[in-house]
């Protein structure tokens, strides 16, 4: 994909001032769309805006409706039929309408800016995921795997800053819990990803996926597979690891002071993180977009397979939420440093041995 085509097409049309008139606008729009249909689709629909927002809506609805069954309730029942599909929109509208309460004596520019970064930074990482070999919105070649981890490395700073900016004791404790949790949880994930890159012989996500055509990396790197699966929970702060927001201990952790749409952004960010890490997990271990070509359309079937794997995994992960209590902070650090990091190194060692012996 050539990302320059989007700009050059527009500029080329606009610069030719002698042709420019109001009458030409429809034809220019059509030409622009024809030239740039693929990047537009990517930005607006698939890895871009539509997918991210659509997933957040789906995940919130699914969590409410199906986890309600685990709690012997019916979930949202009146807004949008018995399935309660419109409840998410109603709640989001409510969050928009609510007053944003900004406490006095806080660092308010920081406080207001952080939730916006909170969901945009993981979205940026999500654009690196290949949906098919020719369907990558942000194609940075062999930099894509390190780029993903670099962007995701920024993500935990935002809760730390916002917890600090909130000037609240609960937010403060929550922010430092974020710091401890991500340090102990993310290092093993990077080591696991290094194992995948070594086995595939490339750090390009497309090549990593193509290297899994015969066998998913989940089979030779089973330890890494399990660790990265845990990593999804850690990175997206889902239930056994929702230590920073633990609502029964710290009121809502680093999110305590946020209200209205700023709170909505923090909730949104949780789902974007979840989405980005799940897609990365599939790309690294479950064969990414690989799958049988359906109806002679390779791109469409690749996208279909990735989305199919994604939604099966998401449903599974969401349902896991209701069976676990939360870990304590010291237990989390113990898990990260005593078990996950050594196991990730062991996994890396196995990968290197396999690579030297030429098994894979």
């Amino acid at each position, binding site marked *: 994909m050539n990302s320059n085509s989007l700009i050059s097409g527009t500029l080329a049309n606009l610069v030719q001032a002698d042709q420019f008139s109001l009458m030409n606008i429809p034809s220019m729009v059509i030409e622009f769309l024809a030239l740039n249909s693929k990047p537009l689709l990517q930005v607006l629909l698939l890895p871009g805006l539509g997918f991210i927002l659509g997933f957040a809506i789906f995940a919130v609805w699914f969590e409410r409706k199906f986890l309600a069954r685990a709690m012997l309730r019916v979930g949202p029942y009146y807004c949008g039929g018995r399935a309660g599909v419109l409840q998410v929109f109603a709640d989001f509208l409510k969050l928009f309408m609510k007053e944003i309460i900004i406490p006095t004596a806080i660092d308010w520019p920081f406080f207001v800016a952080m939730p916006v970064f909170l969901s945009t930074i993981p979205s940026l990482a999500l654009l690196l995921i290949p949906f098919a070999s020719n369907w990558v919105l942000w194609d940075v070649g062999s930099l894509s795997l390190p780029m993903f981890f670099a962007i995701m490395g920024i993500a935990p700073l935002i809760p730390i800053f916002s917890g600090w900016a909130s000037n609240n004791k609960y937010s403060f404790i929550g922010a*430092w819990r974020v710091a401890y949790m991500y340090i102990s949880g993310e290092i093993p994930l990077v080591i696991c990803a290094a194992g995948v890159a070594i086995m595939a012989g490339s750090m390009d996500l497309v090549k990593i996926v193509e290297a899994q055509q015969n066998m998913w990396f989940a089979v030779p790197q089973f330890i890494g597979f399990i660790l990265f699966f845990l990593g999804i929970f850690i990175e997206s702060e889902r239930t056994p690891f929702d230590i920073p927001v633990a*609502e029964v201990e710290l009121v809502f952790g680093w999110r305590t002071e946020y209200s209205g749409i700023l709170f909505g952004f923090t909730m949104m960010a949780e789902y974007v993180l979840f989405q980005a890490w799940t897609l990365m997990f599939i790309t690294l271990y479950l064969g990414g977009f690989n799958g049988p070509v359906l109806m002679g359309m390779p791109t469409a079937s690749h996208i279909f397979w990735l989305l199919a794997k994604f939604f099966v995994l998401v449903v599974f992960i969401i349902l896991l939420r209701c069976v676990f*209590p939360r870990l304590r902070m010291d237990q989390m650090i113990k898990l990260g440093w005593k078990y996950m990091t050594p196991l990730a190194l062991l996994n890396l060692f196995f990968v290197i041995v396999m690579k030297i012996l030429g098994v894979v």
Partner: protein
Amino acid sequence: MREPMIEPDVMRISWGPQHPMSGQTRVLLDVDGEKVHRIIADLGFTHRGIEKILENRSFFSGIIPVDRMAMVDTANMSIGYVTAIEKAAGLEVPERAKWIRTLVCEMSRINSHLYAFGLQAESTGYFPAVFLWTTVDREVLLDLFEELTGARWSFNHFFPGGVHHDLPDGFADKVLKAVKYLRGRFKDYWDAMVENPLFENRCDGVAILKPKDALKLGATGPVLRGSGIDIDMRREEPYDAYGDLEWEVITEDACDVMARTKVRYHEIGQALNIMEQIAQSIPDGPVKGRVNAFMRVPEGEYISRVEAGRGELGFHLFTNGTGNPYRVKINSPTLRNMYVFERLAELNEVFVADIPVIINSIDPWYLDSDR
């Protein structure tokens, strides 16, 4: 409350009363990072002056505020006051009324323990599934209460000298059915809580209260029995039909949060046994004697001790020969256990994340400690 001085290098968190888990109390925590150095419980947010209210009410109408001391454990609250009045007035209770009281008390105990159970699960960070399971299962008991007494909560069913209503037709079968249903459900709780490795992680070895400390600090109820001390007022001073029934006092030796949870779990099993025995072999007869609602009680001091869901509940009744009590002193289980809670940070290493777990292992009901 005047706040004690804060040590250097610690941060004081006001944990409650506006907190998802604190209930109607304030707990001051002196924390250093995740470690809690000191716990200070600040009670009294829900003080209603029930002891004073009782002085201005006749013995009969005093049962109503006493009922409201612990809404989930209504029957066990009023049985204490009713027993004290009966001792004072020398009233005889018909045998069938005693058995009905025991049945209602045990149902109330299950109700209370189920609530404690749900909160215990929630406090470890469980998604509220278990809490809502217990809430749904409590419905079974509440329906029985409604059929028997006409109210689901605070039913004011006992009075000195009997109970207000006899069992309705077919009630014993419904009790047996409820017992069967609850026994089936309890396997789920065991799996979700005691058998769940993450729940064990959170509860095993947390907030250990040695038997010696438990006695010294005056712990009571499941907290005391979770520390391995075999004291239960239902057996020490049998009231109502407890002397005629077969059941045992549950103790656990681990002394930690998990032990208290297990004590509650097994106590529910015992309560179900008692319910079953009563439903099968309740004696016939009247349920109330001839009692004057405006009775006068001879002058004196009377004490009753009963085992409520949260522990030993004591009523110290002073009478002066009129139709009202002169003074009623209520010794409530939550207050005694809150003293224990305050000292747990000194006896153990406690983290911020343990606070909700510990406080719910104590199972406080601030309305009864504040009275």
